[in-house]
């Protein structure tokens, strides 16, 4: 017989490894995201373009087989699966990922700051950098799964279907997709996180994310017009991105229907502009994410 009394006890068991502590944040964030049907649905919808691309790739390689089935698919021959095809897919991916970031991003940091939870985070063996990395990885993981990961998969499938010579000719696309996606995702994720830290209302933060791109485009055009220069283009985020993509994808960009107004500017300036924006976002984040706010 025993009577058990519940009291406070110290913890003396093992501790988890410190290097992966920042992964606690994404784990909890994913639990929330996956529990919501809305977000899961959005994620699934985001994969639809890839599904369509997969079907196109498949059918394009099997026009004869389809003919055997009695379906006249020769019209498909207009579509050639080459760099241009992947670039189109890439552009669609960037739009979709932008929407997804606008959906998920604002809700990541704002709730933590809304009720002053930062001192509780930072009084633990957990640094601000780990916090930001953790939050970033949420966005990067989700968006990677709908951009370059399926993109690369499709590339491999096409290689399997069309043979190694095809992949040799179009080899440049692989790193282009990877680097282009990563750069894009990194930039918009950082901007989204910075907005989430500074703007409390989620819809407003999402709108601000859209706004930044439109406004920067406006700024860029106006600057160019007023000062009769091309350097204003650097203010235009979308242009800066486009410049880098153009360099990555090389001449493939000529297949694009709409072009960005970047004319003959060197590509590295676009990269610099993006790096600057990312740096600005990091500074803004560092300013807001503090254990204690100093009020004068």
């Amino acid at each position, binding site marked *: 017989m025993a009577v058990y009394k*519940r*009291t406070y006890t110290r913890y003396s068991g093992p*501790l*988890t490894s410190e290097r992966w*502590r920042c992964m606690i944040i994404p784990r909890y964030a994913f639990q929330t995201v996956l529990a919501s049907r809305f977000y899961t649905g959005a994620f699934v919808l985001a994969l639809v373009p890839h599904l369509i691309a997969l079907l196109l790739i498949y059918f394009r390689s099997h026009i004869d087989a389809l003919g055997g089935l009695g379906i006249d698919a020769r019209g498909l021959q207009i579509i050639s699966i080459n760099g241009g095809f992947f670039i189109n897919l890439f552009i669609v991916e960037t739009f979709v990922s932008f929407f997804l970031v606008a959906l998920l991003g604002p809700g990541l940091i704002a709730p933590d700051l809304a009720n002053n939870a930062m001192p509780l985070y930072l*009084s633990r*063996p957990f640094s601000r950098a780990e916090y930001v990395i953790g939050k970033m990885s949420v966005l990067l993981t989700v968006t990677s799964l709908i951009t370059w990961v399926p993109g690369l998969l499709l590339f491999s499938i096409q290689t399997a279907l069309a043979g190694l010579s095809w992949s040799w000719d179009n080899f440049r696309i692989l790193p282009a997709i990877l680097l282009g996606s990563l750069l894009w995702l990194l930039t918009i994720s950082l901007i989204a996180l910075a907005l989430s830290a500074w703007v409390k209302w989620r819809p407003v933060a999402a709108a601000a994310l859209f706004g930044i791109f439109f406004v920067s485009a406006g700024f860029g055009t106006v600057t160019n017009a007023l000062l009769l220069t091309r350097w204003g283009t650097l203010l235009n985020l979308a242009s800066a991105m486009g410049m880098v993509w153009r360099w990555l994808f090389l001449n493939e960009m000529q297949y694009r229907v709409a072009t960005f107004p970047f004319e003959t500017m060197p590509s590295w300036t676009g990269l610099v502009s993006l790096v600057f924006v990312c740096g600005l976002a990091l500074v803004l984040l560092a300013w807001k994410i503090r254990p204690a706010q100093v009020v004068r």
Partner: protein
Amino acid sequence: MAFIELDRLSLSLGGRTILKELTGAYSGRCIGLLGPNGAGKTTLLQVLLGFYPPTSGTAQVLGLDIRTQIRQIRHRIGYMPENDSFIAGMSAIRFVRMMAELSGLPPEAAMERAHETLFYVGLGEARYRALGTYSLGMKQMAKLAVAIVHGPSMVILDEPTNGLDPAGRARMIQLVREIRDTHDINLIISSHLLRDIEEFCDEVMIMKDGRVATYCNLEEERRANRKFLQLETRGENSAFLEAAELLGCECAVDGRSRVKMVLPETVEIHDLYQLAQTHTTQIRRLQYKRDSLQDIFMKAMEVGKK
């Protein structure tokens, strides 16, 4: 072993020096931190937690240096901030679990301890509800739960009874006492309510203007001074008081039939009762007056003014 050692610790923020060369070693089980607004109490706690790096000097917490080993210190500290601190959309159990994991506990242990701790602080029934729906008292308890879930060896509580109604205060006081009485744990409690500090703490550090104005050991203070008495009487007491004065006692009457007395060596309390009997005065209350924390605090504040 001193669990906090301050070595000329100074901090300047925004052009103002907030902590000025704090020095000392403190080893009590429960230390109270007192001081007027602006004395630097919260700032000192923030420096010990590593929120601000010191401008000069250093400090050791649990034997670890705050300049170089702050991460290890944070493993062993639990912090309950004064202001509201929660994530509105999360349930209490998720929040406490996450905080436990961030302190290094493996997920299963975090889960177990989170449930245990929430029951312990009295939020057992409400632990699946979102923190945004909690009342003020519940939020305070949730903060306490977050501070102790990872079983730290030192807990810092900043105004723990802030805003609680009497029932909540009583529970918080009870909990803090229980935590203090566990072996091997040190507490630092900062509060404006002297009564609360008197309840829990054996040692008190009073700060003023960024310096330590006084450090005193309450246990020792309580044992001193056995000859000061406070009485409350009923009935005509002037004859009684005169007779007492004749015996050598000093009497001071305080408005509503309260009397403060200093007894000389020769007089016992028994003699007072004798006098009361003789002069038909009823002694309703009799207490040794100890130098309460209020007086110690006031004295500490005076020191600077001269």
